């Protein structure tokens, strides 16, 4: 069997005139954690529900483990119960009238497993999620974190092709969220699960995923490893949604000697690698973008390339670091910096950008 567990080919899902999923194609390989990251309403949950069979696509093809499960053109649609998936809902969807044991046993009972096998596998699944002694409990007597584990056990109990997780951590408090994140990762390593994960939390996406798809308005803006998407965001949206981005206005200058970025404001002319500026003409208005954590604060002095003058407007002491609100060429920035040097509100400083970590975009 091929290593591709899930494949989307130009899948479209419309709600009325809204294209919730707008021609999306991607594949997920066995044993991979693939995350759909995006703001609410971007179509990531709809994509997940299309995989589950809870929504029917309007166009395209969805293929699970080499088997087409939804091809509207051929009138083919496999209902959710025939797709061999496991899913953890944002609300957990623990059935309140069933005990913990019966909740987890449900998928096995549906599959008419023998009662001995049910007992054994439920116990095993509960053990895996750390709820060994809870089988007899009523489902409603559990805390949020425990309900979440029950939902996870229920999704895992019959070894699904793909585990679908729909914002599973969003209802937990910060500490528990961190812990569950680590546990999901460990579980995936141990069981070799294939996971499709939906979240709007970039930290969750970065720490958990093998690959991330940044979803915006029903389209995949970029798919790649977390570092790749963070370091080399291909679109404005991908850049802004994963972490913060600051941008300085300026123009491209080209002459026989090479290319430069010319700042609007008080800064040194900064040389550009030919390849970076290749797509721009001489004089083209552009924005120079970088991550705030890649900017260094230096005391006032001679301006070197990629340095600019700025004024400190506000200082906040965060304990482990300082937060400076500075303004450079009219652009307000918030920079978090270590405690080695200390600047006061009103000080004039230099900001030093890292030439290896900048992007140019047309203005």
């Amino acid at each position, binding site marked *: 069997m091929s290593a591709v567990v899930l494949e989307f080919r130009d899948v479209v899902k419309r709600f009325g005139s809204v294209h919730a999923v707008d021609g999306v194609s991607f594949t997920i390989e066995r044993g991979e954690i693939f995350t759909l990251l995006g703001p609410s309403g971007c179509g990531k949950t709809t994509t997940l529900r299309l995989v589950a069979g809870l929504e029917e696509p309007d166009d395209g093809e969805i293929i699970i483990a080499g088997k087409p499960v939804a091809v509207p053109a051929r009138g083919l649609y496999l209902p959710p*119960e025939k797709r061999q998936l496991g899913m953890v809902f944002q609300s957990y969807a623990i059935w309140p009238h069933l005990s913990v044991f019966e909740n987890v046993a449900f998928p096995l009972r549906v599959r008419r497993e023998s009662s001995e096998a049910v007992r054994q596998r439920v116990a095993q699944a509960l053990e895996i999620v750390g709820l060994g002694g809870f089988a007899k409990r009523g489902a409603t007597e559990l805390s949020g974190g425990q309900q979440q584990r029950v939902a996870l056990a229920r999704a895992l109990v*019959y070894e699904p092709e793909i585990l679908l997780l729909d914002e599973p951590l969003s209802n937990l408090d910060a500490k528990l969220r961190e812990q569950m994140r680590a546990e999901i990762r460990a579980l995936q390593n141990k069981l070799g699960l294939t996971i499709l994960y939906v979240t709007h939390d970039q930290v969750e996406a970065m720490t958990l995923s093998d690959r991330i798809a940044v979803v915006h308005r029903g389209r995949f803006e970029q798919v790649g490893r977390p570092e790749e998407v963070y370091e080399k965001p291909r679109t404005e949206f991908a850049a802004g949604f994963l972490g913060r981005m600051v941008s300085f206005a300026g123009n491209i200058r080209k002459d026989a000697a090479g290319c430069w970025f010319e700042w609007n404001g008080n800064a040194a002319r900064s040389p550009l690698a030919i390849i970076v500026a290749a797509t721009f003409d001489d004089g083209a208005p552009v924005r120079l973008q970088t991550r705030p954590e890649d900017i260094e604060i230096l005391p006032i002095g001679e301006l070197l390339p990629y340095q600019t003058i700025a004024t400190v407007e506000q200082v906040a002491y965060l304990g482990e670091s300082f937060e400076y609100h500075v303004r450079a060429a009219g652009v307000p920035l918030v920079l978090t910096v270590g405690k080695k040097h200390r600047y006061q509100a009103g000080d004039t400083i230099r900001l030093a950008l890292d030439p290896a970590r900048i992007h140019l975009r047309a203005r």
Partner: protein
Amino acid sequence: MSLAATSLPRSRRLHLRPIRLAELSFLLFLAVVMGLPLLFLLTGSFNLSAPGKPAVYGIDNWLRAFTDSGTLSALGMSFTLSVVRLIPAMILSVSFAWLIARTDMPGGKFIEAVCWIAYFVPDFPLVLAWILLLDPSFGFLNSVAKSLPGVDASLFNPYGFWGIVWVHTSTGGIWFKVMLLVPVFRRLGATLEEAARVAGANTAVMLWRITLPVLAPMILAVSVLSFIRGLQSFNTELLLGTPAGIYVYSTKIYDFLQREPRAYGEATALGSVFLLVLAVLLFFYWKFLSGGKKFTVVTGQGYSTLRVKLGKWRYVAFAGCLLYVAVTMLLPLTFLVIGSFMRRYGFFNIASPFTVNHWHNMLSDPIFLVALKNSLIIAGTTAAGGVLLYSALAYLLVSRRTVTAPLLESLCWIPHVLPGILLSLGVLWLFLATPLRFVLYGSVWGIAVALILADSPVTTQAFKAGLLQLGADLEEAARVSGASWRYTYRRVLLPLLAPIAAAVGLMNFGSALTSISTPVLLYSHDSRPLAILLLEYSFTGELERAAALGLLITAIIGVMMLIGRKLGLQLAGSE
């Protein structure tokens, strides 16, 4: 692979067809059972021959109905009564709701529970009880009054305009409004009142300038709804108005159909007029509701912790509430009990005035036993049928997979505003003018069908609320886990909806048991239910026996409602 590929197209058919099929059959069913009676009502008014005979069309019915001097005055009386009743009812229910929800009156929870119980006390036995208390010749309060010095004539007379108004303030209406208004008062954002306080307003100023104006749209909405529902009233007007020659349109329709031969044409013409008036009223109500978004501050945000301190007046308020409940509920019910055990009601001075004969005679009367059986069949069928039908309808409406949801929804709201007597008249036409005549006319099943229709709005809404509260996730989780729709329904939906189904079923059972205006045109000698028997007892002047039967019905309802409440509470506790 090949096996899967060949079986796939079939699974799509299985997936989509049942939903569409169910939707279409529901639409067809509702259109037939809700729409056709209305259509028959309108066309029937132009039909000069009796239902089931070859139709002859003309406007004679309308001419005759409106040359009958009583017709217009009956319509006018319906409106006058409904408006006049509304004034004390709104003042009382707003006061009750405010005291319960917004003040530190002791026993607020208790009073609320009492209102809840009082709402379910059927009105017909209460009307009887007021006759026992106020009748000019044998009414107990009149006898007491006459024994006072300086009083020689009867002080009270329930038969007439003010008698009807008074009895209505003690039956269902007020309690229902209190139950509607208490949550509204509770949800009023506390900050609004707190801001008024901080700005220097005392309780009276705050109430007058902030609380009431903010709640005015809701209070008005409840008033208009009560007014429209007040027009449906039948029982009280029949017992207290008819002897005094006061007719409302519903008793007038009944009167037309009691004549020999039955004046179907006139009754239908009158019903049609009222239907048109109702449509106009509803249009304005709907306009008003959809336009009235100015005061959306009544939200769940900031549940009120601020309660108005009444000081020593809080005991007065509590005493006042208790007194009202005592006078309007305990007093009449007590006299219903006394009445049912008296040899001859009102004669306290004869030797051994008390007897169990009425109970004994009633319980051994074969007519009673048949009526009891009929009632149980009708109420049981109504409850079970309503639960099955409307849980499925609610599921369809909530699943969002229907394209005709708005149409389905409006069809199922029709009986909410359609008076029982008109529904019954429409259903009567449907039965008489179609082959249904041979199956449903005059049978217990026909009555059950009409009652199931009458239950559609409340039952559907209850299931919709329940399903929305459960959310789609629980069902979808089962589907993804590998369960078929049927398995999901059996193992997940049904057990979760069971408490709602039981509570709603009990409520429908109760209202089927006490309904008079719906079966009154549909029953025959063989299908007479208890409520109609009660009506007959009171017409023939067998007040003692009527009291016994009224109490029996009230007791059955009481037991059912307590069970229902218990089930309802269990549901709330499990979430």
